[in-house]
């Protein structure tokens, strides 16, 4: 009983499949397995490899292979289109639509330049106030004072003060109309500092969250059992 085709026979089989009209790699893989099995059974019945292979080389095989390949390619395209549509539909959520709309509004404002600067200056002024308020709250609160140092918060505050200052310097009010008073370099600096500040706030936020979690865990593990035993 023959268990497997030789390397040479396998090579000839792949060659036959390709020459007789199968192009798609996935279909070649499937047909390779099918025809290997078919050949092994034929050889078990006493047919030689050469005769088996020769018996397949007919016009009807060629036409069938071409038809199969065409149908398979069409199905594959439909399948991938369906998957793509499914994933696209999943992406259309209320949250994503909201963020896309927000990005579109901000981008539009930035393109309009003057309005963009005014918008961003206002936005960062608010951020600056929020940062200052947050710093005061964090320092006053005993628990978070352990996590964030005054230096941490000062950096945070300085970032936003700097941003607000640059933003306000790049625009000026001239006879009731806002005009751009500074060069594009100032605008670029402003954007880079803004990105750095946001990055720094995310880092701080993550740190506060991690430390708070660990303090809560510590409290659960140490203080509560102590209270229970008292």
């Amino acid at each position: 009983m023959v268990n497997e085709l030789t390397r040479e026979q396998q090579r000839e089989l792949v060659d036959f499949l390709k020459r007789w009209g199968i192009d798609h790699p996935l279909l070649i893989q499937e047909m390779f397995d099918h025809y290997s099995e078919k050949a092994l059974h034929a050889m078990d019945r006493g047919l030689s490899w050469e005769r088996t292979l020769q018996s397949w080389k007919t016009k009807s095989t060629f036409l069938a292979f071409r038809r199969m390949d065409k149908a398979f390619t069409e199905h594959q395209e439909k399948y991938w289109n369906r998957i793509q549509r499914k994933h696209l539909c999943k992406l259309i959520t209320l949250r994503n639509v909201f963020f896309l709309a927000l990005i579109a509004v901000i981008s539009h404002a930035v393109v309009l330049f003057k309005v963009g600067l005014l918008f961003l200056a206002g936005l960062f002024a608010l951020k600056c106030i929020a940062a200052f308020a947050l710093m005061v709250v964090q320092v006053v609160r005993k628990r978070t004072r352990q996590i964030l140092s005054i230096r941490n918060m000062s950096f945070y505050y300085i970032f936003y003060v700097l941003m607000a200052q640059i933003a306000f310097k790049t625009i000026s009010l001239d006879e009731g109309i806002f005009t751009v008073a500074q060069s594009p370099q100032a605008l670029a600096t402003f954007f880079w500092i803004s990105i750095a500040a946001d990055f720094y706030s995310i880092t701080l936020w993550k740190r506060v969250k991690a430390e708070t979690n660990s303090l809560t865990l510590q409290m659960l593990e140490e203080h509560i059992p102590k209270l229970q035993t008292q």
Partner: protein
Amino acid sequence: MSKNHLYKGTLSAVLLTLLEENGRMYGYELSKRALEATNGDLNITEGALYPALHKLEAEGLLETEMERVGNRMRKYYRLTETGGKEARDRIAELADYAANLQLFLKNRLANG
């Protein structure tokens, strides 16, 4: 003599039935089992078998998995949940058809 033409139109039902009975199967196995189950009447050619399987897969009635066998990759087909329901519906449909055909032939033979 091959009676393949008589099975025309029932191929997908035959495939779904075989998969319902046997769980997962690969292409060559399906064609062999169909031949055995019909006493050699239904010889499914590759040109009919694979397009039918791929169509059922594209319709979501079959799912596939690949497995290495020796130095080859083998593609196994199995019914999805929808495919299972569809298989049962088609078997019932086919049974109805066979019963009606049998009745028709019985009457025809009785009338000479």
